[in-house]
């Protein structure tokens, strides 16, 4: 015996082009929705990973330093703001602080990089405390320098690749003409560390004539500690500003939320159009089969049977469209990732679009529910058709 599902399926096949166009509408909506939701969770996950990879939750910098740090890359290290490293004692004594590490960012101009020269950045760090902050840093070759006064360097993966350096080789700090021996090359991390050259803090202070000065203190908080009270206390220190990476994350997410709202609006419009398309398709199909439905009722079909028949058609359309949309989103996720990267002012290093099973399930259930809702009216109208009027073709539509 033929089932209601088979009847509904055959009915949809009777008007293939119309059904296909409706299906495409739903598929596109589902694709946009899955991609958007995937972007939402992918971006945040990657951003969290990038921030976690920094190893610390708070940074203390000399006032104005972030701005100067940014221009450092453009101006060759001029105008950097420094703070006295004695400030570390004040920071370390706070009960919320688990670990701290001092950093002296520095940059030199390399005239022999390309046609117009370029900037080479060096991070002066204390190997012990820095390594403790970033336990995820693994070495491809060698290890950390042990003496903060030595002329040794640890290179990020890409920096070493560009400079063709291996452990035991020498590097020359341009402008200063100071030689360092490479003692370690890091594995690829996918973060800014890949392009960084780490040198001992004391040596950097000596080379740049900044005795006992640093640009940054990285702070790792004790587990479960709220950073806000500590930030308040640290702001009491003279001439420093505090950058909370949670705040950094929030600010980035706020910046991104504008783009998300825009895409969400587009997705909502696409879904609304798809709903209207589904209602239109099913309703048109009901009107076209007006007499046929009347005959069905005459031979004993109850309003609920007709309702279910029409409803099943909606469910088939929405489920199939939803599945196609999800497949599209999975196939095109890399392209979506590339487009997002091109459009956004800042994108973290990991994947921007993360589509997992839970997301797929939620989207499909959502689309089927929307389909069920949008099918109610056409199905209800079909269920209310009066058999005799339908057969005579007299009913007011």
């Amino acid at each position: 015996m033929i089932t209601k599902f088979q009847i509904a399926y055959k009915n949809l096949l009777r008007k293939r082009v119309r059904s296909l166009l409706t299906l495409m509408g739903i598929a596109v909506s589902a694709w946009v929705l899955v991609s958007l939701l995937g972007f939402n969770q992918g971006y945040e996950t990657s951003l969290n990973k990038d921030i976690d990879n920094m190893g610390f939750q708070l940074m203390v910098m000399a006032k104005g330093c972030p701005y100067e740090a940014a221009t450092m890359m453009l101006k060759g290290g001029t105008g950097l703001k420094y703070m006295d490293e004695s400030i570390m004692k004040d920071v370390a004594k706070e009960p919320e602080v688990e670990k701290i590490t001092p950093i002296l960012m520095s940059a030199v101009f390399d005239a022999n990089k390309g046609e117009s020269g370029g900037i080479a950045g060096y991070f002066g760090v204390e190997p012990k405390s820095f390594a403790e902050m970033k336990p995820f840093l693994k070495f491809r070759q060698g290890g950390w320098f042990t003496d903060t006064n030595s002329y040794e360097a640890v290179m990020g993966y890409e920096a070493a690749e560009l400079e063709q350096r291996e452990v035991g080789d020498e590097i020359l700090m341009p402008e200063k003409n100071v030689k360092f021996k490479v003692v370690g090359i890091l594995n690829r991390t996918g973060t800014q560390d890949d392009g960084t050259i780490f040198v001992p803090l004391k040596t950097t202070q000596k080379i740049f004539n900044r005795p006992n000065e640093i640009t940054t203190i990285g702070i790792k908080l004790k587990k479960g500690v709220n950073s806000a009270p500590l930030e308040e206390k640290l702001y009491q220190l003279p001439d420093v500003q505090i950058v909370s990476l949670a705040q950094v994350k929030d600010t980035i997410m706020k910046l991104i939320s504008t783009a998300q709202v825009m895409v969400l609006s587009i997705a909502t419009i696409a879904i609304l159009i798809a709903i209207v398309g589904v209602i239109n398709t099913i309703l048109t199909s009901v009107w076209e089969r007006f007499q046929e439905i009347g005959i069905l009722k005459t031979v004993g079909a109850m309003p609920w049977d007709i309702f279910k028949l029409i409803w099943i058609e909606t469910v088939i359309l929405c489920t199939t469209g939803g599945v196609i949309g999800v497949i599209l989103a999975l196939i095109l996720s890399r392209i979506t990732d590339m487009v997002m990267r091109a459009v956004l002012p800042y994108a973290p290093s990991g994947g921007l679009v993360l589509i997992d099973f839970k997301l797929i399930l939620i989207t499909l259930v959502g689309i089927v529910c929307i389909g069920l809702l949008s099918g109610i009216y056409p199905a209800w109208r079909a269920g209310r058709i009066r058999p005799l009027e339908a057969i005579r073709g007299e009913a007011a539509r």
Partner: protein
Amino acid sequence: MMRLTVLSLLLLLAGCTAAWSAVGCDLNDPDRDVARLFPESTGYKTIYTSILKKGGEKMLSTVETRLGDKFKGIYETIEVPYTIYEIYANKKKIGYIHGVNQKGQFGGIQVFVVLDLEGTIKGFYIQKMTSQYAGRLRDAKFGRQFIGLTLKDFDHYDVVSGHASGKVEAIKNPAPEAEADFRAALRATKKNLILMDEFVYSAQPSPSSQEVPKK
């Protein structure tokens, strides 16, 4: 205030990455550099290849034999990607630009050669070099010594001992203090010419105008 701070930090982080993001040996600004290195060009096409892709272990062995030295270290390997810029004047192919990375005394050296369709050097450009004396080796005067040379001229240049004869011997080192980098530049040039011969010149029957430029 916070927004500005964040943006500054992002710029800093992006700046760090951008400063080192080049992998392989590409021209930093191909549009500008191609026009400068090949003034008669009107466009170019970029081709990506590698020894692994073109001929695998057999090609590597051939290249090493012709070079007279083994590929060394963790960066000079069979997988290294190479970028060949095919140069066009209108629709006619007129030459190539190709660069290789070479380990120098204090850092990576990027050596580009500008070649005509017969494989003769028309131009020589060291894009990057880290050395106190890099300025002298990157000077156009040093580069001009390579113009007119071919792979044949480098056949008898020993990249290990640095012993040269013929036209290569005539190339003067403008920075005797940086002998290692001078030799590295010569090794890079020979390797560059061998690779171009393997990738392009030996692979095509005769130099002729072909294909349509991209730009």
